[in-house]
């Protein structure tokens, strides 16, 4: 849900619209609101949940698509380890 609704909005705003239009102050204002606990919580949810979404999906894409089941441990550590690292 977070990855499907909020992530495209964020990428559009911070990855395309603001760099192209040069709205630097708006980016600063948004991230400056990180001092607010609610904004901190929002950023935490925005970053942690989609990372686990990626870890789970990417793991099974590698299994099914590339058929590398013998590298089970490596893929597991790379995917979920990356998600935990990003969350930390």
């Amino acid at each position, binding site marked *: 849900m977070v990855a499907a609704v909020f*992530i495209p909005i964020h990428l559009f705003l911070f990855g395309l619209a603001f760099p192209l239009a040069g709205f630097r102050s708006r980016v600063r204002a948004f991230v400056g609101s990180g001092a607010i606990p609610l904004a901190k919580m929002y950023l935490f949810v925005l970053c942690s949940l989609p*990372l686990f979404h*990626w870890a789970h999906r990417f793991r099974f894409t590698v299994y099914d698509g590339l058929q590398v089941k013998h590298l089970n441990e490596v893929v597991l550590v790379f995917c979920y380890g990356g998600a935990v690292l990003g969350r930390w």
Partner: protein
Amino acid sequence: MTNLPSTEFHPRWYRARVSTYWWMGSWRYLLFILRELTSVAVAWSVVLTLLLLRALLNGPEAYSRFMHRMQSPWMIAFNVIAFCFLLLHTITWFNLAPRAMPVRVAGSECPSFWWRLQTMCCGWLRRQRSRGLC
């Protein structure tokens, strides 16, 4: 068929060999793999957000450097591709969610999420119009 070991009480396994490129044989399979790969675009967006936060915490110079890098053509092109993947993820997610969790209203199942979304938007517009806001 792979040569897996068989025991006295267990017959030899039958495992048909599947090509590594099985997902290129059909448009449906390709769409399935593309949908799964949208998770990479999701992870990329999160990494971008984390880098943005780090640049802001490191001061104005780091932030300017980050924004300058974001304005480069290859980064814009990469973000456009990532955004297309994210849109695919959003569309397929909204198509799949009501199938996984069908919503029933007055005993009957709602046909599709888009139908519900359309109904919600129409209801909201009607309310705004009745208030004279639009």
